[in-house]
C-alpha cells in the first residue's frame, strides 16, 4: 500500500514539475539570465569601449581602494535606519489607531493608504516643491504659524538634508508598514486583552506583553522588506538632492546609476550591484536573527 502511495506521489510530482516547466524556463530567461549576465559583466573592465575580462579586480577595487564606496554605504545605512525607523514608529501608531476605529473604518484606512498610491517619482517631485526654500509650502506653513522666523533650505543644509530625505522616505513607507501591522493586529485574539485586564494589566503592560510579541512576525516582515526597499530607493534621492550637497546624501544606489549611466563603466557598476545584492541578503539574515518570528 505504502509503495503504491509513493509511486502515485512520484507521478504527481513529475506531473507538477511538467506543469511548472514553462514558467521555470521563462523565469530562467527573464530573471536568471540577466543575473548571470550582470555577474559576468562585473568581472570585466572597459578598455577603449570594449569590455575585457578582469576577474575579481572590480571587487578588489571597490572593497579595498574605493573610499567612496564605504562613504556611500554609510549614507545608505543612515538612510535605512532613520527612514525605516521613523516609518515604523508612525506606522505602528497609525495601525493601532486604525485597529481601534469603529466608525468610517473603510474611509480611514483608504485615506491612510494615500501616500502608497502616489508613484515614487511623483511623490519626490511633490516633496521637492513642498521643501523649496523660497516658495515651498513647508516654510510657508511654519512661518505663518510663527514656528520659523526665516525659511530653511531643507535640501541644502549639511546637517539637515539627510534627515529630511529619510522623513520623505518614511512618508512613502508608512502605509506599507501600517497595512502589514494592521493585518497582524487583527489576528491577536481579543480574549488575551480581556484576560490581561482581569489580571489588572495596564495599557503599557498589555502592549509589551501581548501586542509586541504577538505582532513580531508582522514586525519582522514589514521592517525587513522596508529596509531592503530603503536600501535600493533611488527616486527620492535622485530627484530631491542628486546626492548633494557635496556627497552628503550620495547612496550606493545612486553610485551604481552614476557609474553605469553617467560614467559609462558598466563592469564596475555591475560589481557594485552584485555587492548590493549580498548586502540585501545580509539584511535579511540580520533581521531573521535579530527579530525571530516567535511561535504564537
Amino acid at each position: 500500500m505504502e509503495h503504491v502511495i509513493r509511486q502515485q506521489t512520484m507521478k504527481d510530482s513529475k506531473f507538477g514539475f511538467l506543469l511548472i516547466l514553462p514558467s521555470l524556463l521563462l523565469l530562467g530567461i527573464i530573471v536568471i539570465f540577466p543575473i548571470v549576465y550582470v555577474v559576468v559583466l562585473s568581472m570585466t573592465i572597459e578598455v577603449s569601449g570594449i569590455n575585457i575580462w578582469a576577474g575579481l579586480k572590480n571587487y578588489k577595487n571597490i572593497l579595498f581602494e574605493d573610499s567612496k564606496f564605504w562613504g556611500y554605504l554609510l549614507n545608505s545605512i543612515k538612510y535605512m535606519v532613520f527612514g525605516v525607523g521613523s516609518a515604523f514608529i508612525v506606522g505602528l501608531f497609525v495601525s493601532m489607531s486604525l485597529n481601534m476605529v469603529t466608525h468610517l473604518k473603510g474611509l480611514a484606512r483608504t485615506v491612510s493608504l494615500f501616500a502608497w498610491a502616489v508613484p515614487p517619482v511623483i511623490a519626490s517631485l511633490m516633496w521637492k516643491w513642498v521643501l523649496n526654500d523660497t516658495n515651498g509650502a513647508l516654510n510657508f506653513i511654519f512661518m505663518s504659524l510663527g514656528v520659523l522666523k526665516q525659511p530653511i533650505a531643507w535640501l541644502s543644509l549639511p546637517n539637515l538634508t539627510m534627515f529630511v530625505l529619510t522623513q520623505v522616505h518614511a512618508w512613502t513607507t508608512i502605509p506599507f508598514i501600517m497595512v502589514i501591522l494592521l493585518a497582524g493586529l487583527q489576528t491577536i485574539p481579543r480574549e488575551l486583552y480581556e484576560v490581561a485586564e482581569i489580571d489588572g494589566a495596564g495599557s503599557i503592560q498589555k502592549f509589551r506583553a501581548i501586542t509586541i510579541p504577538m505582532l513580531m512576525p508582522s514586525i519582522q516582515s514589514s521592517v525587513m522588506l522596508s529596509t531592503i526597499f530603503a536600501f535600493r530607493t533611488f527616486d527620492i534621492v535622485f530627484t530631491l538632492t542628486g546626492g548633494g550637497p557635496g556627497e552628503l546624501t550620495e547612496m550606493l544606489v545612486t553610485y551604481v546609476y552614476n557609474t553605469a549611466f553617467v560614467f559609462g563603466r558598466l563592469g564596475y557598476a555591475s560589481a557594485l550591484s552584485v555587492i548590493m545584492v549580498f548586502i540585501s541578503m545580509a539584511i535579511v539574515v540580520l533581521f531573521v536573527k535579530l527579530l525571530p518570528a516567535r511561535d504564537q
Partner: protein
Amino acid sequence: MKRLLLVLMVFATMGTAFAQSYQSVQWAPIVGRVNADTYQLPKGAKEAIAAEGTKKLVIYNWGDLSFDPATVASGKMYTELTGVEIEWVGTPDEQMMPKLQPLFMAKSAAVDIVPLDGTNFRTFVSRNWLMQVDFLWDEATLAAFQSGARNLLVEGHHYSVPQVARVTDIMYYRPSMLKAAGYSAPPATLDELAEMAKKMTIDKDKNGSIDQYGYAFRAGGVLDGAEIIKSIALLYGVNPDNVNGKVKYNDPKVVTAVDYLVKLKNEYKVVPQGVTSYQHGDVADYFISGNVAIVIDPTYLYARAADSPIKDDFAVALAPRAYKGGPTTVIQNWNGWGISSFSKNKAAAAVYLDMYRSFQAQKREFILENNEVLLKKVYDDPQAKQIGYAAVLSQITDTVIEIYPNQGEVYKTVIAEFQNALIGKKTAQAAMDDAQAQINKIMGY
C-alpha cells in the same frame, strides 16, 4: 552542395545591397541642399529607402513630444517626403541611458535614431554604437555651421548631425525691481551684478525673512553645476574643459569664478540658500514666480517668461562680463541625432539626419521652440530676427561646445566639490584642488 552555394550567394548579394543602400544615395552637393529654403531629398534617397524596405523609423526623443512641436513638425515633413512613418519614443532625460544602453549592448535593431548630448555622445562613439556619417558632411557644409560643429568630430569622423544648440547664458532681469533700487540698466560686469544684487535683496515686510533675492543660480544638477562654473570662468577668459588641451578646474581663473559664486551665497547672501538643490528649470521657475531680480539662464526661459505672469515686466541682456571689455563667450548645450550601428534602416535614418540639419528644420527649432541652432543661415532669416532675444545673441562674440570622454564623471566630481564650497565645508581653492586631483585620475593625467 551547389544548392548551398547558391543560397549563400543570394544571401551575400542581399547583404551587399542592404549594406550599400545609403551609399547609393547621391548626397552631394550637400551644402546647397542644407541651405535651401525648402528642403529637397537627395537624389536616389527614395530608391535606397525602398531597397532596404523601410516603412517605419523608431526615434528616441529627450522628453515628451508635446514639448517639442518643432521636432514633431519636422518629423511630419520627413514622412511626407519619404513615406516613412516615425515612431517616437519620448523618454525622460534620466531614463535615456538606462534604456538605450541595454538596447545597444544587445545589438538590438529596435531603435534607429538616438538623441545625443554631451553626456552620452562620446560613450556611444567609443563603443561603436553609432554609425559613421562622414558621407553627410564636407568642408563647405561644415563651414555653413557655427564653429562648435567642428568639436563634434571624433578622430576626424562624423557620427552625428546637430539638432539644437542652446545658448546657456543670457541675463533675464525685472526692470521694475531695478528701477525700485535706483538702476536704469542691467549690470554690465560681475562686480556690478554683485553690488546690484545686494541692493535688490530685500526683506520687504521687515519680518526677518528675505522676500526678494537679487540673484539666483543653479548648482544642483551634474551638468548645471559644472556649467555655471564654466560659464563664469569663460567670462574671465579661460575654458576649464580645455586649458592647453587639458581639463583644469583649479586654474586660478576658475577658482576666482567659484569664489565669486560662493561669496554671492555665503558672504553677500544675495542668492537663496537652497541653490545647491536648484537644477535646470528650478531657476526658471523661481524667476517666473516673481521673487528674484536677475538670473542668468538658458534661452529656453525666454518663451516661458513671455507666457507667464511677469510677461510685461522682464527684459533680457547679455550676461555681465567679468571686467570691462572682457570676453562674452558663452557655452552652447548641443543636442544631436545619431544612427544606431544596429539599425536595419540606415538609408532612411541617414535621410532623416540630412533633413533635420537643413535650413527648414533648423529654422523651425528656432522659431517654434526658441532653441538656438548651429546653422548660420537661420539667423539671417527675417523671422529669426524678430525673436525677442535676437539682439542679445548678436552681441555674443564666441560660443563653446566642448565634448570629451569621461565628461560626465568629471562634471559629477566638479559639482560635488563646488557644493562643498557653497556649503562652507571647503574654500573655493581647496574644493577645486580636490576636484582636480580626482579629475587627474579620471582623465589619466
